Structures are given as C-alpha cells and as structure tokens.
C-alpha cells in the first residue's frame, strides 16, 4: 500500500479532479512559476493535438480544465491517457513564445491614481514608472474579461492592496496595479486596481484573428511614451498601419 502511494506521487505531478461529468480539473501541487506555466501550456498543446474528444482546455495559474463533448468518459481511461501523453512530452523543447513591448502613457488623466499610489508606496511617480516599465512580465493566462492578461512578474516594491471600493468605469486600455499583480483593462469595466497609465493598443478584437495578440507563455514589457506618441499610435491603429512588436 505504502509503495503504491509512493508510486502514484511519482507518476503525475498534478491531481485529477472530476469537476463535472464532462470536465476534468488538473491541479499541480506547487506554487505558480514560469517553469510550471511552460509545463502546463506544453501539456495543454499536446492534449489538444492528441485527444479529439476535447472541446476546450482552459489555463489557470497552476491548473488546467479539460472539457469534452462526449458523455461521461471514465476516470480510469482519462487517467491512463493523461499519463501516457504527459510522459511522452519533452518539456525541454524550445517553445514558440513571443515578447511584446506595450507602449504606455503614464501621464496626466491617463494616470489618475499614480500620484496617490506613489505617495503610499513612498516612491516618486517617476520611480513607479521606472520600476513598472523596467519589469519583464509573463502572460500566465487570459481571464476576467475578453483579452485581460493575467501577468506575473510585478516588482514587490509596487505591491499595493486593491481599492476598497471598485470604480464603475475604468477606461479601456488602463494599466493598473492591484495586490501583487499588474494588468491592462481591455474594455471599459468596473475595477478595483490603481490606474497608473494607459495603452492605445487593442487587447481584444472579436472580429479579427488572432483576436488577442498575446497568449499564455508569452512575455511582455511596458515602454513609457508621451501623450503625443500615444495619439500617434492611436491614429495609426485607426488607419490600420500600427504593428505591435
């Protein structure tokens, strides 16, 4: 019995939980990290390639939700299939992840909470901008709103609790800090994070592929731009001549 338990703990690094007759939740028993994220999305791609029954797989910080079309597949079948696929993967293979430079204007009305937040953090607004735009961020997954990127990698000097009362209309493109996270609001929405800037970049367009430029596993950094540059990029986006790199 003891031996078998040990075998199991060595066999797969995640637990398998049947959430719904047609959905299986895999949760890794470790803290989210970049290494784990790469493992999760590599595994996801392989499952999508090899299991035709799957209708969609959704990524979380340390989890995958697998949904399928057919009726109730047996847990044993899924367990053995998942094991075979997991152990056939070469996790060291280089992946096709990209890096994106997001232009952000950290000035004026675009940065409504910057002054206040800087004071609370005992930093100057300039320092906050410097630290925020120096960072390298990982796109963990997209959730909350269409095109809302969950980013990992915020400098702990910028950690600050969310607002007690969310505001009703955070402007589209707002770049904000909440808790230990930073993010970009893809649409006007209610939100409790502190707004420090705005990007003219479109995060989500349901009418144009690839809908959202970024995907899980990509990296991203912010580049400070002036209001004039902001307007220029905005015009180029309207003309269709802007290309994000």
């Amino acid at each position, binding site marked *: 019995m003891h031996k078998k338990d040990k075998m199991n703990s060595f066999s797969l690094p995640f637990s398998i939980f049947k*959430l719904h007759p047609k959905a299986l939740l895999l949760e890794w028993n470790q803290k989210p990290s970049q290494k784990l994220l790469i493992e999760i999305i590599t595994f996801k791609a392989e499952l999508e390639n090899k299991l035709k029954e799957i209708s*969609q797989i959704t990524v979380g910080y340390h989890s995958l939700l697998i949904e399928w079309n057919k009726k109730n597949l047996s847990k044993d079948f899924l367990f053995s299939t998942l094991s075979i696929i997991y152990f056939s993967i070469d996790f060291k293979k280089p992946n096709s992840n990209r890096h994106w430079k997001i232009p952000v204007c950290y000035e004026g009305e675009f940065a409504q909470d910057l002054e206040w937040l800087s004071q609370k953090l005992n930093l100057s607004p300039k320092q906050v901008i410097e630290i925020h735009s120096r960072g390298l961020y990982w796109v963990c997954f997209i959730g909350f709103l269409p095109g809302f990127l969950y980013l990992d990698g915020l400098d702990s000097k910028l950690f600050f609790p969310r607002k007690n009362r969310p505001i009703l209309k955070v402007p589209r493109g707002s770049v904000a800090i909440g808790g230990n996270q930073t993010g970009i609001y893809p649409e006007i929405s209610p939100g409790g994070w502190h707004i420090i800037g705005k990007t003219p970049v479109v995060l989500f367009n349901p009418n144009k592929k690839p809908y959202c430029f970024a995907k899980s596993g990509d990296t991203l950094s912010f580049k400070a731009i002036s209001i004039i540059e902001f307007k220029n990029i905005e015009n180029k986006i309207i003309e269709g001549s802007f290309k994000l790199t």
Partner: protein
Amino acid sequence: MIEIINSGFYTSVQDKGRIGFKNFGVPISGAMDQQSFSWANRLLNNLTNSAVLEMSFKGPKICFHEDTFIAITGAFMDPKLNGFSLEMNKPIGIKKMDILQFGNAISGSRTYLSVLGGLQTQKILGSRSQFKGITTIERISKRTVIPIKKLSFNLFKGAVIKHTMMNFDKNILTAYEGPEFNLLPENIKHQLSFQKFHLSHLNNRMGYQLKEKITIKLPQIWTAPVLPGTVQCTPEGKLIILMQDAQVTGGYSRLLQLDDEAINCLAQKGTNDLLQFRIKKLT
C-alpha cells in the same frame, strides 16, 4: 424581420453559446435554460443551435414584418397574439403585422421564443449569443430590428415532439463536490446539504448570489478555470453560483458544481426563491 416595440425587463438573443474561446477570456454565454431553449427549436424542426430570444422576468412586445412560424417555451408570461391568449409549447403560424405581447413571468423566470430558421443576428466567434464587448449589440432594446429567414415553404412540418409543461416549482439542485469541498468542516458540509437557501436580488446572467452566508474562513485560491454552475464562496462567506455569462476564471473557493439539469432549473428562479442542494460524489 421582427421589430421590438418594447423590450421587456431583459431580453437578448441566445443560442448554445461560444465554445472554444475561453483562452481569450470569452465567456460561454448562451441560453440560461438550455432545456427550454432546445425545446423551442425542436418544436420548429430548427437546427439545434438556432438563435432564439431569451426573455427574463417580463417579456417584450414584438411586431412581425413577415409570415413565419414561432414557438414559445420556458416560463409562462401570458403571451398574447393580437390580444388573444396564445398556447405555449407548440408551433404557431404568424402573419405579417401580427403583434405578440408578453407580460410578467408567472411561473419560472425565463421564456424562449424561437422563429422558423432561427434569428439571423450577427454571428461572432461561432455564436449569436449577445455579450458586451463581443457582439455589437449587448441586449435587445426598443425598436431593435431582428432579421429572420424568409418563409420558403407553406406546408409546415414541425410539431414533432410532445412534452408536458415544465414544472418550475422544483427547487432541489443536484450538485457535485467542488475542489475545495473537503476543506469544509462537517457542520458546514451538513449545512450545505440540509439548509434551504434563498436567492438574493443579486441575480443576473453572470451569476446568482444567495442570501444566507456560511461562517467559515477559507483560503483564497490561485485563480483557476470555472464553469457555469460553479458555487463559489467569497472570503466573507457569501455563496455565488456562476451562470452562463460568468467570467472564465475565478479566485474564490469552489465548494460545489451544479449538474446541467440543476443549472436549467436555477435559470428559472428569481429573487427570494428557495433552493436546496443535493450533494453527490462524482465517480
């Protein structure tokens, strides 16, 4: 086409929903009561994913600008065609300039109106279900005009199913144990199984909050994927049941997961309605 003269309380175009776009953060959407939705289409021999009108709590007033056939399923909203009471759950022939009017929901909360061939609104990411930021129109308002298919044959061949009126009084919801269920002490597990809960006024297509709280401190979890029917518990002990328009990931503990039939049942509930969970283990 059909013209909306007034919109009712909350009316939107819905189908089965948007499948396969969760990794862009796009909710599934789709009809809240998938059972009534599917009956509405089957009564007209429509394709199973044809778009219908979903009406909540109070229905709209509609003018038809061409001949067609319709069917009405779900909650009873006392539908009237040109002022005369209309039967539900069967195909009805419609003439140009007919006026269809709905009242308040008397039993149940959501009514479905299917039209022969399905509503022909904008299809985005594989679905016509209306959702803010995805479809141009997020819900039906006064004077909205909805294109429908031209009636190309006169002989009508629908009405293939017979079913008894749905009973919306049922309030037992079958639920499976969620990933954090086992963190609960026995008394809370017992409470979830035996207490009756009231639906609060905070209920919409995204989720339903229950009035009664549970007293427990649960750890926040790492944001993870959720489904319609996931019963979440906030740090203050509030219980929130996610529905079709819910966001695709969540950071609250997941205590239970409703089965599909329970979601259909819940979709027909409204403020102050009583609910009870019947908790099952999934094997």
